């Protein structure tokens, strides 16, 4: 499968890197020779130096043979034109484009039905606001994924230093928690991913990923000593487009929200467009302002400026000054592993959101959603089990899964099944799979159909 990526920024780089490891045929286009150099020095993919919006460059890069175009340059306009040129030169090529401008929010479907016929418009900002909302609403969660239309929650939490679960073997967990069923999909310990068996034990500071049904979420969290917290007051630092989207969203949910923005003109615009939200003009990393705004009474501080260092500092400061929870926007992937070290647990990244959306569309098999875990280590894939594929009509224990793969949920019509070795997946079931990155190509193989499938 040939995939053309226009834009060698963080998203383009990350996707190219993943795909190169999966033996897919990838060509990356970028105008900036430095960005191209970074790609060719680090990843084994083809590169073309030129603008993704140029039909000549696209042809040179092989758009006619490409099954998918990913238009992920920094510019909405270049992405749109790249899709338009592709629509003319190679109409069958599937087009995915990142478009951030909110003016386009109501036009996503129109762009699909009319030229440039963009199959999927990726707006990471909308996705980031959703992620923030999920993080706010699951106490103690570092990471929250939703599958099967929200019915299945995939949650990552940090065990406390003094957790009562320390030293408990997973096989002994059921006797401790009674009737509830809990599936621990993975543990991250010292930046290493463990897919646990019954013999593994839990340790303080572990990052534990578990799966549960929506209605059991809060009961399950109690097992880990994470209790429901009221969410009444929020403070947003940074009134850019994500900050604005989030403020509007919190406003609708009647959460008392303040937003701090440096730029006076931007403040005026925010105040004009926001109803009950209090707009403050100032520097969010200024201790005095935080003090004046009674930071100790704030339930959640969300730092969303364009400067990630400011976000990190402001989050740390707010926490120190008594804010209960912070959520920090980070862009550089290289920062991710550092965050938990310095005490920043809840992190969001528009780029990571974009990557998750893209993954869903380039996986083989009928994939409904995909989510990268801890940046690179693993992926959760939600897919339809298709007739004739290797995964259906036999007990899970009879299927030879590659190492580092577990099925963490089966959804059949309205029934949710927490899988065991005896569970049998039927054709058209929705399944949720947790897989180490190295196992992804094999997962794709398990999901693929035989010749007889029409």
């Amino acid at each position, binding site marked *: 499968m040939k995939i053309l990526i226009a834009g060698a920024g963080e998203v383009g780089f990350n996707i190219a890197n993943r795909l190169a490891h999966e033996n897919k045929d990838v060509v990356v286009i970028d105008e900036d020779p430095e960005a191209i150099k970074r790609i060719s020095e680090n990843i084994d993919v083809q590169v073309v130096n030129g603008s993704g919006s140029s039909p000549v460059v696209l042809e040179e890069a092989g758009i006619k043979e490409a099954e998918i175009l990913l238009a992920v340059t920094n510019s909405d306009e270049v992405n749109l034109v790249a899709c338009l040129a592709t629509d003319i030169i190679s109409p069958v090529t599937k087009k995915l484009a990142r478009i951030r401008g909110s003016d386009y929010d109501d036009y996503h479907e129109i762009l699909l039905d009319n030229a440039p016929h963009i199959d999927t418009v990726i707006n990471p900002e909308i996705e980031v606001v959703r992620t923030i909302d999920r993080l706010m609403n699951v106490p103690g969660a570092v990471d929250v994924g939703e599958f099967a239309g929200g019915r299945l929650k995939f949650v990552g939490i940090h065990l406390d230093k003094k957790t009562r679960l320390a030293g408990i073997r997973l096989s002994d967990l059921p006797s401790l928690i009674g009737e509830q069923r809990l599936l621990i999909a993975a543990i991250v310990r010292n930046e290493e991913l463990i897919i646990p068996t019954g013999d593994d034990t839990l340790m303080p500071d572990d990052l534990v990923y578990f799966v549960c049904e929506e209605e059991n979420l809060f009961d399950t969290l109690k097992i880990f000593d994470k209790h429901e917290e009221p969410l009444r007051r929020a403070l947003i630092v940074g009134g850019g487009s994500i900050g604005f989207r989030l403020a509007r969203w919190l406003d609708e949910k009647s959460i008392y929200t303040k937003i701090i923005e440096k730029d006076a003109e931007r403040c005026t615009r925010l105040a004009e467009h926001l109803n009950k939200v209090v707009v403050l003009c100032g520097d969010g990393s200024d201790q005095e302002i935080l003090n004046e705004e009674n930071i100790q009474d704030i339930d959640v501080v969300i730092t969303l400026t364009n400067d990630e260092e400011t976000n990190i500092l402001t989050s740390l400061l707010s926490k120190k000054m008594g804010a209960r929870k912070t959520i920090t926007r980070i862009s550089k992937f290289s920062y991710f592993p550092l965050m938990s070290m310095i005490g920043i647990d809840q992190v969001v990244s528009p780029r990571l959101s974009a990557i998750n959306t893209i993954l869903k569309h380039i996986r083989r098999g009928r994939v409904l959603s995909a989510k990268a875990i801890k940046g690179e280590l693993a992926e959760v894939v939600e897919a339809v089990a298709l007739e004739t594929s290797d995964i259906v009509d036999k007990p899970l224990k009879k299927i030879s899964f590659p190492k580092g793969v577990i099925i963490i949920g089966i959804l059949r019509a309205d029934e949710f099944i927490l899988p065991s070795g005896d569970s049998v997946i039927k054709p058209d079931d929705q399944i949720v799979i947790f897989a180490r990155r190295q196992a992804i190509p094999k997962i794709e193989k398990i999901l693929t159909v035989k*010749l007889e499938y*029409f």
Partner: protein
Amino acid sequence: MRILDVLQKEAILVDLKSQDKKGVLEELVTPLTHIAHIDQEDLVRVLIERERLGSTGIGGGIGIPHGKLKGLKSLVLGFGLSRRGVDFESIDGRPTHIFFLLITPENSTGVHLKLLAQISRILKNDPFKKKLFNAADSEEVLSIIDEEDEEF
């Protein structure tokens, strides 16, 4: 029914030019769009989508791309030969030379599966495959298939 009942001479291409999956599907589909009055782009999309679920390059130089198409009246078959071979992501990783393309209406009741089985069966015969690969024109393709073709 036999293979030759659905394979028209116009749907046979003995010298495919493309060497990639998308290109060869576009080529194979072209004569069928006239025969069955179907939209080329729609059809190629259906075929590529099916390929994404699992390649129909079954190895041994054979590819049998297929799919269901809304609004199609009856089953349509196409045939193509590539001298140089196509990267069809086949299961044995080798180039694909002989293509049967099968498109069936959405509500087809199983005749397409019988046809698929028949095609797979005759292609297991190596001397036949060799003769087919060396066919010079569509007439010859038809007569070679005719020798092996049976009622199903």
